[in-house]
């Protein structure tokens, strides 16, 4: 029996309305991302790569086309169902980390788990393990303002993987980091992909960062122009 791709996109289109004008962002995108694949979406500004990532992550809706994640057509889900689906299946890594500034590293990582039925003790075990995995076991009680950019992004990675999602979406995860921190973060994503087999889709405009991925997908003016598969 053939296993469904992690992400299956068919004839996907998305446009925005700006000042009464309809601006197409994505036109007729067809793409498969296999389970366990680490894919980099590249392209110039305005090419639609972040829009495609948002659609894959279920935080935006396409105008037309089919978008299946692990066999489920998420375009048919309503807002509430999409929220539940994201909580169970998607981990998010943002360019500016998007941590809750009033919560400690521990509490930020624990946040997605509060939507599950795990007990307090189970949550604690998982959070401590995951923060240890990203090298922040000794910074659990620190608030984001007390952490460096690289450390904050590591907290964000821990938050993204804490629920063991099928898919991790990363939008310019190294865009706000210095070279060394960026390299550390990319290495960590690579390790997650290799060791846990998590499917990762990363948007980046940094060619160096894109090399970390096993596959590159180029977008230009809303169209998929080349799709070399890295082996």
């Amino acid at each position, binding site marked *: 029996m053939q296993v469904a791709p992690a992400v299956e996109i068919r004839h996907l289109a998305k446009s925005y309305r700006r000042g009464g004008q309809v601006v197409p962002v994505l036109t007729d995108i067809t793409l498969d991302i296999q389970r366990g694949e680490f894919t980099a979406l590249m392209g110039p500004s305005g090419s639609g790569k972040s829009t495609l990532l948002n659609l894959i*992550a279920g*935080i935006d809706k396409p105008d037309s086309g089919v978008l299946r994640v692990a066999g489920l057509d998420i375009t048919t889900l309503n*807002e509430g169902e999409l*929220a539940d689906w994201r909580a*169970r299946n998607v981990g*998010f890594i943002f360019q500016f980390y*998007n941590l809750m500034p009033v919560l400690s590293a521990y509490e930020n990582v624990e946040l997605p788990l509060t939507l599950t039925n795990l007990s307090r003790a189970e949550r604690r075990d998982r959070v401590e393990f995951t923060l240890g995995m990203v090298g922040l076991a000794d910074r659990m009680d620190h608030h984001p303002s007390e952490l460096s950019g690289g450390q904050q992004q590591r907290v964000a990675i821990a938050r993204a993987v804490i629920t063991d999602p099928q898919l991790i979406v990363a939008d310019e995860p190294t865009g706000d980091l210095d070279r060394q921190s960026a390299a550390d973060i990319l290495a960590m994503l690579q390790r997650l992909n290799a060791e846990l087999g998590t499917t990762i889709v990363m948007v980046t405009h940094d060619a160096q960062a894109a090399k970390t991925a096993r596959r590159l997908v180029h977008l230009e003016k809303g169209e998929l122009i080349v799709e070399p598969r890295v082996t």
Partner: protein
Amino acid sequence: MHALKLILRNALRHKIRTGLTVFGLFVAVLAYGLLQTVIDAWYAGAAAASKTRLITRSSISLAFTLPISYEARIKGVEGVTTVARSTWFGGIYKEPKNFFPQFAVSGNYLDLYGEFLLPDAERQAWMRDRRGALIGRQLANQYGFKVGDVIPLRGSIYQGEWQFVVRGIFDGADDTKITRHMLFHWEYLNEWLAQRPARRANQTGVFIVGIDAPERAADVSRKVDGLFENSVAETLTETETAFQLAFVAMSNEIIAAIRVVSYVVILIILAVMANTMAMSARERTAEYATLKALGFGPGFIALLLFGESLAICAVGGGAGLWATPHAAAAFKQTAGSIFPIFAVSQATVIAQALCAATVGVTAAIVPAVQAARVRIVEGLRAVG
């Protein structure tokens, strides 16, 4: 648990802003409570009025007196138990600012006012002394009067220098009774009037009519007034409550203004609170979008804002509630001559709490709805 943590920590994010909002709420709830207490104080006399006492006065105006010959005829009305006389004296103690009410009353006056407690010995001493006076405890405390003291009054209606000897001090049966007045013998005033040529003797300001059952008040009033229909001095008999309210009605515009101001104070703090919550929600748009991306629903986002708003209102409103009785006590110390009864009622406390809660909920409605509806993609682009 996480929601509570987020609510409390978000509330403390901008300490100065939250502090100022809490202070504003404190002042508003306190001001509202004090203004409502002022209104209550205005009605205190009416609230303490007895249902078994009627007041018979001239139907033209209180400024007109009634002949004491009416007394016997009123006594003859079925349901009437006692009839006492009372005349407003209007004397000045040293300075006009030292205002307190004085009444020339008949000896049986206190029989109708069981809520004023006077030792028998002092009542006997008063009955024996033509110039004797009885004073209430609040009045005695205010000026330090004690039994045996002479109170000099300068008559404004009954012009001349008057001297009264304190023969007794009466207490109120409870804290709601006003005891800031002085009683002296109606006969003493009448003797003085009899010696004057203006023929003002043998008159009384009002008759206080005791009845045997409150439900007979309307019937007795009608019968009493019927006795004097088409006479030179027609009467108007009403319950003591109605009589007191007629005085309050003279200040209706002032009371209405105070009431309006008390509501305006709440409206102002509502606007301030709504602004605070709107600013907070706008600054955290990206955070709310992140929470939604992580799977938290719009209800959770709304809960955070309502919770924060209510938490701020609970602290500010709670402080206001706590401070109101203390402020009222201080106000009574300085303005006791105007409002002898100035106590924060339970109804006022409940109204204050409701105002604070209403402000908390109302101020958060628009920001909460906007935050709950924020589109994730747009919210993530927002700069706080």
